[in-house]
């Protein structure tokens, strides 16, 4: 049973008299990897936090409408731009989420072993998470949420502070999570990354959805002026 689709109806977020998100209407369904693309300050992170329920809209509604929508809270996860590491070991960071989700302890060990293996962190399992490199920390953030086997995973610029090899590793892990059946919704301002990852593009500009299309169409024949300017590197704000 699925919690998707996620439907946003005329959603606005205002702060200090300014509309940070302006009447956004969207439907996010199961399947393709969705990339939310846009320049800095377009409202990408805000939109993701709104979808994930970390903040509420000033106006409009955010609804999970799948048959299992009542359990939507437990079935979604998020990875932040700056990984938040609990002050404990790598293994304990993964175990923490599993305990919150009341995964039986007998199953916990197996899941921890599996995700650490698949994110290349087995060797540092007993180290303090706080002393890992940024790249390792982001992989741990992915492992921690992967272990919870979410149906939907939101990723907020997960590679923004990583070098190319770190970025490659994270994209690889995201791909594996996707192949395991998890819906990926990711923000980025990096065009090259969007081209690599996207199977569906939502282009955000000044708090509004300027375009929502498949990547081939978006990258070859953008419909909006803002999107073509962004693709050409002309869109400065």
């Amino acid at each position, binding site marked *: 049973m699925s919690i998707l689709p996620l439907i946003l109806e005329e959603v606005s977020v205002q702060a200090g008299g300014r509309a940070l998100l302006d009447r956004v209407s969207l439907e996010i369904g199961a399947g393709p990897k969705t990339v939310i693309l846009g320049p800095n300050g377009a409202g990408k992170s805000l939109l993701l936090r709104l979808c994930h329920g970390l903040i509420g809209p000033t106006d409009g509604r955010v609804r999970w409408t799948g048959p299992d929508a009542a359990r939507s809270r437990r079935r979604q996860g*998020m990875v932040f731009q700056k990984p938040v590491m609990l002050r404990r070991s790598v293994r304990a960071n993964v175990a923490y989420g599993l305990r919150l989700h009341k995964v039986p302890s007998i199953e916990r060990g197996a899941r921890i072993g599996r995700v650490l293996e698949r994110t290349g962190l087995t060797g540092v399992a007993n180290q303090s998470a706080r002393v890992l490199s940024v790249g390792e920390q982001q992989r741990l953030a992915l492992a921690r949420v992967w272990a919870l086997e979410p149906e939907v995973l939101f990723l907020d610029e997960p590679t923004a502070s990583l070098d190319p090899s770190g970025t490659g590793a994270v994209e690889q892990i995201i791909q594996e999570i996707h192949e395991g059946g998890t819906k990926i919704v990711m923000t980025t301002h990096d065009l090259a990354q969007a081209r690599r990852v996207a199977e569906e593009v939502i282009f955000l500009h000044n708090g509004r959805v300027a375009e929502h299309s498949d990547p081939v169409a978006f990258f070859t024949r953008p419909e909006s002026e803002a999107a073509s300017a962004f693709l050409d590197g002309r869109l400065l704000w």
Partner: protein
Amino acid sequence: MSDIGTAFALAFQLIVVLDAELVDIVGRSLSVSLTAVMIATAIGLPLGAVVAVYRFPGRRAVVILLNALMGLPPVFVGLTVYLMLSRAGPLGVLGLLFTPAAMIVAQAILITPIIAALSRQVMRDLYEEYREQLCSLGAQPRHVVLTLLWDGRLGLVTVVMAGFGRAIAEVGAVFIVGGNIAHVTRVMTTTIALETSKGNLALALALGLILVLLAVGVNASAAVLGGVSAYRRA
């Protein structure tokens, strides 16, 4: 001048030979203040965590009150506890006045706001960092409180040490509610006050030196732990 020199020499001698009276007084000081710190920690840490995490009406007022109470004058606390515990007071039937228990109560009252206010600050900072992540993982406020208490442990130990430092060095409150009775309620600070006025500088100095050593030791441990904590945070 030579009097002071003699006093120092005698003081060192008392410490070196572990003079029975000195040991008795130091032991009582430690047991009273450590017990007070345990009680204040048991109340202050959860209080600080709750105020840091939960949103409730009057939260700001509680924060302001806790911060203000950090500067509570010991003599005033002593007086209040004295009035409560005196024969005519509401808790007079307990017969606690002029016992170590009364001193523990007074010191616990004195340092609970310190531990609560400082630990709130530690956990508030941590909460700023953790809030969205914990919420995303599905943590309820009670989980958040436990997580902050555990993950903030190094910072919280220094908070508890600050409370201990305040308790062990305090004289006004324990003097009033303890009465400075030899072998019963005499602690380091009250003895120093008494012996100094009697001109018995050696014992006063010996106790003073131990007090300073304790203060330095507590602060040094706090600094070391703070350093470890800062390293972990990097």
